[in-house]
């Protein structure tokens, strides 16, 4: 690889499950800027079954648009000097693999097995089955189940540290007898994560080390009252990223093409979010919604957290969003009356033809409705997982040890949150930027004052990996070409009577009033910041307490300052179908979200 100061032309790709994106960055007049972007469908499907085909197609588009030669046949030209054909460096990220399906095993179904299931769900997996010593099944039935389900991974837990080892060893023996085989690749052993009684480690190793790829992590239930899911979840995450990446056909070929190791897409985006939080000393929530997975990143209380919801996405996983959220929750965001049968079929058709795009307004609105639920669920999942550093454990009393509801205090606080960064096809490619803003507001329900931004053309993954090799180039492109500032969002908490004055905003001798139940935009141009005085009605709270005035800095953007006076805690949509549609239409009109038909 060349010295940093000699790098003047950078090619970077991101292989998503659905689309492969390529960007070309050049150093011009002493600064790095995005020149062009190309994309092509990801080619993991037959007859191609090779991610590099899609990569080459995306690069070809870059070649055409930029009018330069990068490819020599199927090879990327690496130039020796900083001139002529080719590029100086080629880097890539990938998430072309797909979802994650796991089995979990624990000694008692309501105790360690439930904790294990929570760890797996928290890591974004689908739990195919939970095996527990007291699940009333015969051993041979459990063994058969493990064999036929062929999970991607097994999480085994049970016993408190230092306690009796009999039961957890028994579970290991069941897994040993099942001799599970992974669905992919004959030469590869099924990963089993052991997160149980630390005293049983030797016995577990003896039974499982030869037959599986065994990983030992801290007990997820070290004592009856303590739950420590983080080590197990982190391990699932790490294995998932390795696993998903290596499964994409043609991945090895791509590895040979890049100048630095391929980074998993969520890892690369996370790096950027963490950098923003640390640098600007703010609380950040980032999201990257893809075809198969939705990744959420957060930086709260100086702690970075990342979750991959492995089965929430807009194409391959779209049907799972319906399954998880329920059709009713999706339909509530559709701003017209729609037949359930029709909606179901449309969603399924997107699943089976994942690379298609909405070509009518109705189709776009349906897709954006689904994205709200995918984003909402991904954030829910992130909240349960973002519970701070290792060692911050949920203490349980003996009484609630048997009645578990939540896993711990989440670090995610929508009120103290300063910045939301949205990325991924449905957000970055929304025809109007205000659509991305509204999708994020509806899904995340930010509280107080929050800045909304979106990745302009979906290039955060590439910039993330670039930041590891050339920070200057990554930062310059990120600031100038990637991050689009949409504007501040003002959303008071609480509920008052519909139509009553809710928010009064004053700045620059101007005053804006919004009633409860309404949404609106105050024009404020990009990069402009104003000191505003915001007062709220008695029953509402912007962070200083009910009815208390707030002085705050508002920032403009391509959308402007968005006021959301629809209420929080709870945010409610009308149950009645006609009323709901009317409301949605009203907000859409107020924010000028869609073209008039």
């Amino acid at each position: 690889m060349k010295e940093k100061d000699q790098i003047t032309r950078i090619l970077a790709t991101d292989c998503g499950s659905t689309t492969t994106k390529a960007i070309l960055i050049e150093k011009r007049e002493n600064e790095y800027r995005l020149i062009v972007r190309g994309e092509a469908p990801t080619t993991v499907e037959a007859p191609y079954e090779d991610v590099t085909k899609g990569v080459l197609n995306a690069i070809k588009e870059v070649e055409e648009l930029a009018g330069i030669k990068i490819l020599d046949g199927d090879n990327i030209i690496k130039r020796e000097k900083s001139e002529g054909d080719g590029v100086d460096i080629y880097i890539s990220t990938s998430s072309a693999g797909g979802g994650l399906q796991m089995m979990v095993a624990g000694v008692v179904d309501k105790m360690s097995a439930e904790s294990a299931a929570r760890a797996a769900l928290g890591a974004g997996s689908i739990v195919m089955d939970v095996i527990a010593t007291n699940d009333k099944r015969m051993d041979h039935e459990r063994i058969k189940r493990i064999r036929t389900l062929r999970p991607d991974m097994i999480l085994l837990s049970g016993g408190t540290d230092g306690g009796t080892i009999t039961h957890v060893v028994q579970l290991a023996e069941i897994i040993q007898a099942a001799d599970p085989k992974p669905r992919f690749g004959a030469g590869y052993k099924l990963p089993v994560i052991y997160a149980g009684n630390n005293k049983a480690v030797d016995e577990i190793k003896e039974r499982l080390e030869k037959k599986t790829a065994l990983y030992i992590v801290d007990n997820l239930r070290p004592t009856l009252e303590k739950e420590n899911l983080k080590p197990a979840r982190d391990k699932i995450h790490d294995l998932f990223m390795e696993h998903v990446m290596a499964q994409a056909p043609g991945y090895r070929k791509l590895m040979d093409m890049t100048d630095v190791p391929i980074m998993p897409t969520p890892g690369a985006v996370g790096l950027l979010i963490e950098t923003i939080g640390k640098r600007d000393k703010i609380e950040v929530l980032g999201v990257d919604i893809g075809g198969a997975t939705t990744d959420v990143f957060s930086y709260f209380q100086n702690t970075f957290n990342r979750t991959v919801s492995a089965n929430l996405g807009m194409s391959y996983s779209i049907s799972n969003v319906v399954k998880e959220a329920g059709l009713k929750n999706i339909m509530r965001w559709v701003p017209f009356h729609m037949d359930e049968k029709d909606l179901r079929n449309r969603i399924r058709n997107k699943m089976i033809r994942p690379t298609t795009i909405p070509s009518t307004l109705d189709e776009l609105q349906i897709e954006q409705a689904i994205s709200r639920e995918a984003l909402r669920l991904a954030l829910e999942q992130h909240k349960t997982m973002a519970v701070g550093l290792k060692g911050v454990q949920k203490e349980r009393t003996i009484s609630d040890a048997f009645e578990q509801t939540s896993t711990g205090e989440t670090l995610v606080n929508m009120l103290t949150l300063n910045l939301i960064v949205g990325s991924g096809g449905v957000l970055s490619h929304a025809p109007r930027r205000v659509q991305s803003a509204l999708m994020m507001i509806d899904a995340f329900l930010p509280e107080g004052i929050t800045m909304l931004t979106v990745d302009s053309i979906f290039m955060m993954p590439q910039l993330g990996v670039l930041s590891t090799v050339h920070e200057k180039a990554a930062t310059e492109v990120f600031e100038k070409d990637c991050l689009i500032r949409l504007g501040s969002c003002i959303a008071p908490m609480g509920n008052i009577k519909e139509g009553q004055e809710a928010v009064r905003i004053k700045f620059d001798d101007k005053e804006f009033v919004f009633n409860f139940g309404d949404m609106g935009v105050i024009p404020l141009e990009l990069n402009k910041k104003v000191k505003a005085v915001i007062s709220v009605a008695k029953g509402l709270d912007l962070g200083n307490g009910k009815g208390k005035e707030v002085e705050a800095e508002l920032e403009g953007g391509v959308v402007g300052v968005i006021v959301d006076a629809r209420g929080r805690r709870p945010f409610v949509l009308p149950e009645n179908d006609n009323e709901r549609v009317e409301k949605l239409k009203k907000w859409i009109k107020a924010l000028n979200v869609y073209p008039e038909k």
Partner: protein
Amino acid sequence: MAHSYTPGLKVTEKAIVKKERRLPLKGEVLVKVGDLVKADDIVARTELPGDVERLNLAGKLGVPPKEASSFLKVSIGDKIKKDQIIAESKGFLGLFKTSIPSPIDGIVENYSDITGMLTLRKPPKKVEIDAYVNGKVVEVIENEGIVVQTPATFIQGIFGIGGEVKGELKLVAKSPDYVLTKNDITEDLKGKIVIGGSLVTSEILNECVKKGVIGIVVGGIDDKDLKDFLGEEIGVAITGQEEKGVTVIVTEGFGQMTMAKKTFDILSKNDGKRASINGATQIRAGVMRPEVIVTYDIDTIVEESKHAEMGMDINSIVRIIRQPYFGAIGKVVGLPSQLQKIETEAHVRVLEFEFEDGKRIVLPRANVELIEE
């Protein structure tokens, strides 16, 4: 950009089809390269370890796990018969002995002196795989299976449920847009694969199961009916394991969908011929689509289509795969290279599409698929 990449499904009257036939575990391959095989021929076999039966030996004997093994009358690896006494406590002066009979025929696999559990294993089960299609063995994967090759009619569907079945194709639909009725599913369709038209409902599917129809190839199905038939919602599309008694292959998509004329014509031509079909679908990395295969005589000469390699071009025949006009087939008459604004206000690459009646529309390139000639 003269042509564009479009993933398409194969619908070909004559193609060279290769099928890998692999055992789930290593075993014995029964044929060799060059052999001609029939679809039902067993080509490889192995033995799956038998089911495991676990016995709480220490508990039954009423002794600590560490001591229980001394009461075993058999050793690890021994063959055992059902009801054979495999452990016995000494009792008191030869009285009050506890005898433990084996619950199964099999072998003694393992004893754990921590849990006190004795693991017994039933005799291995035979697992055999057949050739699935008539053809010639072109490759042997040592100890695992073979690759069989044959000239065949090959049709890929878009979505399916149920695994491999073989049977006679029976044209029941009167036209590609025909909707099957309950009366169409007659007793004589037992063991056959029905060629349907544009829609199959859960009622018809249940009727197929009742009448012993083993497979159905159809244009569309409502998602609601699929859910009703399966009894559950499909979250992630990984199918093929369903054991509902009938394999379903959907060629176009969800909803009522007229079967593509070409698909319907090819299937109609094969009415009465024996086909091998598989509903297994995986919509994820390494997509797997359901298929219908009707083999030809091994010496049939096949000229492989080059269309898939070439991508989409002017005059390519394509199918629209998204609303509106979902399922319409026509020809590409323009491929403008500049991005164009569509109804959603998105700027995308588009193509100009001509319907069979000459009407033209502009739509995103991503929303068509190439139909292979």
